[in-house]
């Protein structure tokens, strides 16, 4: 018997109907990080249908996904694969599976930390915190000059007036039992 129970769990968590996928491959063909992935978006959906939970949660694919939504925008069956990737990430965290791309998980966490405390994103803080946490100081240096010149990294943060409210939103939703 092929274990098909994962399908319903993912469908519920991501609000998608993944069985609609007919593997036209348009998502994978347009995914900007597909070349780095092991399976690609449509193969990930296929593996869900076969109940391959361990393999998926341990894969690089779910952490390499940039959430750019190119896949979901182009899917002829209106499946938002980025949301499915997100659902798989949520299950991985909930079940304590070590992410195959640790930098990706750290980036997500750092990002949310900044937003929680400043009320909105501050790229310079994100950079500093991420670099210190991973101790990988130099690998993105080649992007730095262009980003600075374009004004992508404002040095002074804009502290939101309502940052207290944002912090409360984080605090009050952190212990909501998520159906994962």
């Amino acid at each position: 018997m092929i274990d098909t129970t994962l399908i319903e769990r993912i469908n519920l968590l991501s609000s998608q109907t993944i069985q609609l996928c007919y593997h036209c491959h348009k998502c994978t063909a347009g995914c900007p990080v597909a070349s780095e992935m092991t399976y690609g978006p449509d193969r990930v959906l296929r593996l869900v249908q076969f109940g391959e939970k361990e393999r998926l949660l341990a894969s690089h694919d779910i952490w390499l996904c940039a959430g750019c939504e190119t896949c979901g925008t182009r899917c002829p069956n209106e499946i938002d694969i980025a949301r499915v990737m997100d659902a798989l990430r949520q299950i991985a965290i909930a079940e304590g599976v070590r992410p195959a791309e640790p930098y990706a998980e750290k980036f997500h966490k750092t990002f949310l930390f900044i937003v929680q405390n400043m009320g909105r994103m501050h790229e310079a803080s994100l950079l500093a915190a991420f670099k210190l946490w991973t101790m990988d100081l130099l690998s993105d240096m080649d992007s730095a000059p262009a980003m600075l010149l374009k004004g992508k990294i404002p040095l002074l943060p804009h502290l939101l007036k309502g940052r207290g409210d944002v912090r409360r939103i984080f605090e009050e939703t952190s212990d909501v039992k998520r159906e994962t």
Partner: protein
Amino acid sequence: MAKIGIFVCHCGHNIAGTVDVQQVVAEAQKNPDVAFAIDYKYMCSDPGQQLIRESIAKYGLDGVVVAACSPAMHETTFRKTVASAGMNAFKCESANIREQCSWVHQNAKDEATLKAIAIASSIAEKVKGNEELTPLTLPLTHRTLVIGGGIAGMQAALDVADAGYPVILVEKQDRLGGRMAQLSGTFLNFAAAPDLLRQIIERVSAHPHIQVLTNAEVSELSGYVGNFRAHITHYALRITQPDTVGPDSPPSEGFTFDIGAVVVATGWQPYDRAKLPEYGGADIPDVVDGLTFEKMLAPGSEIRRPSDGRVPREIVFVQCAGSRDRERGVPYCSKVCCMYVAKQAMLYRERVPDGQAYVFYIDIRSAGKNYDEYVQRAMTDFSVLYLRGKVSKIFREGDKVMVWGADTLSDRALEIAADMVVLATPMTPTAGAAELGQRLHISTDANGFYNEAHPKLRPVETLTAGIFLAGAGQGPKDIPETVAQASGAAAKVLQLFSKDEMTASPMVATVIPELCAACGACVKACPYGARSIHPLWNIATVNAALCQGCGACVVACPNKASQVHNWRPEQILAMVDALYE
């Protein structure tokens, strides 16, 4: 001296781009038999035709040559034109200077022009010798024979009978309904096939214009369109299985009918799964074909394993089990299986909610209205798992049926231990279809399906005038297509019956009695059975209704006694002379 008009068409650039049409006109005018010659951009257009009409009146023309496209395009058009101007239609001929000249000599303009001049001149010679002919009128019996009492035959019978014409409906089994009566629900809305059929069968049985003959077969059909003679044999008792050829009880009686048109609706039968040894042949009881599974899905029946009667909890459907298989001799797609497998899988999941259904497929062909959405429902609403790969082997292991397949979408081989397997086997022509085709003088293709007259434009006619096709006997199709085709065939019948008489082309063979030696060579040569030797007068005769003007008898006759109207030997020799001038 004849007074022929030569009308040279430019056909836009098609002819004039290669052939010097003015030169063709100039050369034609030199012919003493030509009273008038002119060129025009589009002869077939209204002004072009008007030019022809006016010229006939103005110059007192007694013959017309339109040097233009192939007669297959516009011979009928121009013949109607001259007829409307009071000239006999058969004094008009097409000289093909397009398909057989300008279109194939585009790089040799001078030679093409010379060739066009020669073609026009030779056709002018032919027209000189043409007699004024009148189309033949033949009597027409307004009774239809429908062979096959399934949904196709019944629909055609109802359409013709509702128009007021009598129908004889012949069915070789003991009841009407055909294969549709063997189905459970139908896709798309699971409406029960027997319920849908009940109304139709009742209407057919009660119809004042339809005579139903069950346990009957057409043993002979002679004659020609509008004037067939059918011999029907009725069998008192049918002991054998419905799918075998021939009865095993002697015929009880025969009926003969005069028939005007025939609709062949003999349907299909499932491929014998014994010919699929890698899928267990017919030896594994829990491996059945689609039609057998239908019986289990019928209301009141249960889905149970044939071996031990248990309800199957894991069921595998195998699509393309024999179809699309060149090696198996069934290269074609059977069209309906993708749809009925989805239906059967959904009905199974409804009846056995804790069961798991798998479908192995290579492609999904769901090309009708709402069909693709229907198949997707099986995947989304009924949790049927669709696996993309052709099943390699099916065998027994203990009380399970092992299925070896693959899923190419995830690059994996699969082995499923199933309780039951349903094979979607090919749709093949019904038993005895080819023999019936021979009796009716209609042809079948390499797969045994009846040949339509043209694959695109004439899907319900055969090349035998008066014999039409409906249903799966012509090729695999589902119920809505069958009904549409049956109504199409009925429309062709009604078209034939719309007049009280038939007209036929007068370009048929004729016999010059003084030259005929009654040798019988023409009788042997005629492919249409139109020749015979008159018993009293001892000369060959022509059945003008059957004769197609092919000329085989002309070639066979040693005395040139057999000639085709307006294609006489002296005409042809004059045409050859004109070509060599």
